[in-house]
């Protein structure tokens, strides 16, 4: 008996087994990290995910569940970032997990902090949590306190919050979360984030389980990122 996940890839729903899910997720992480700094990042990754969905559908036929081999085959067709690079004008960010040994400049791997909303740590839209991470404030409560103060004293707190909410992108992927905190993106950091995500996931699962107690099967959405799912992107 194996656990399966329900995912949304290229706006198509798939049922995928656990091994295949982990494989696909780490592959997509390398893809997103590779193209993050490339112009047209959203469109490129969207096209790649749509093509992967198409490859899965072709391979599945009448089978209901995407397995590890399906993911392997799709990756073989699409290729890994170290196999791209044939387009000099739009080279992506070197990926530390795959570019080792190709002689690329290692210093590029350090990323500066970027301002993201953090919906997972947030109370409303994650704006305060994102600002706290960006400015290195240990607890978002102080940022929230600041918003409360400027709301009471001048009334601009709420409009300011709403504007920031609209402007700041949500940290969707593990790479985003690292960039938000300003940590360099490397294998050990990614695995740290992934571990945290799984803990987060299991918390959510417990909550969900309590809510759904009585129902036999809790539906597990990939990464519990409803926002990402709505936008049709897996990561």
């Amino acid at each position, binding site marked *: 008996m194996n656990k399966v996940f329900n995912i949304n890839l290229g706006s198509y729903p798939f049922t995928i087994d656990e091994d295949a899910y982990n494989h696909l997720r780490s592959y997509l992480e390398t893809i997103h990290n590779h193209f993050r700094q490339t112009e047209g990042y959203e469109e490129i990754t969207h*096209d790649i995910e749509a093509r992967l969905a198409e490859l899965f559908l072709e391979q599945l036929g009448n089978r209901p569940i995407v397995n590890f081999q399906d993911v392997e085959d799709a990756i073989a*067709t*699409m290729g890994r970032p170290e196999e791209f690079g*044939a387009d000099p004008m739009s080279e992506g960010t070197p990926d530390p997990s795959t570019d080792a040994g190709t002689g690329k400049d290692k210093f590029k791997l350090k990323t500066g902090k970027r301002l993201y909303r953090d919906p997972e740590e947030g109370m409303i839209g994650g704006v305060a949590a994102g600002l706290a991470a960006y400015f290195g404030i240990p607890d978002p409560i102080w940022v929230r306190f600041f918003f409360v103060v400027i709301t009471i004293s001048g009334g601009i707190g709420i409009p300011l919050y709403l504007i920031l909410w609209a402007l700041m992108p949500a940290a969707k992927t593990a790479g985003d979360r690292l960039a938000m905190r300003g940590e360099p993106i490397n294998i050990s950091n990614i695995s740290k984030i992934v571990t945290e995500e799984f803990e987060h996931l299991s918390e959510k699962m417990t909550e969900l389980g309590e809510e759904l107690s009585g129902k036999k099967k809790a539906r597990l959405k990939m990464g519990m990122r409803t926002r990402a799912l709505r936008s049709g992107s897996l990561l």
Partner: protein
Amino acid sequence: MMSEEQIKSLHATGQQLRRGVLELVVLSAIAAEEEIYPSTIQQKLKDTPLEVKEGTLYPLLTRLKNSELLQYTWRESTGGPPRKYFSITDNGREFLDGLLDTWNQLVTAVHQNTQNHLNNE
């Protein structure tokens, strides 16, 4: 005998040369058809020294599309997500002609300047 370092360097330089002509070849492949799906471009290049993974094509196509050298239309597909079919624009054709001129000049110049080496062997 070349050292391992030199063999690596040969490989890397070869890679650079291929990179340089990929854009030319992809544009030509698209210009040859009314419209084309990216995996068909990959199929055309398969089993040639210019073989690429599909993942190489998406950033290139997006960039050429954003530079208005290519355009795409959405086509419904049987049992899959809608597909983007690419075609070349008028500007794209002009661009491709310019690239081909450069390429032909390069081939001639390279040919002339490597003849001596070939004759001496």
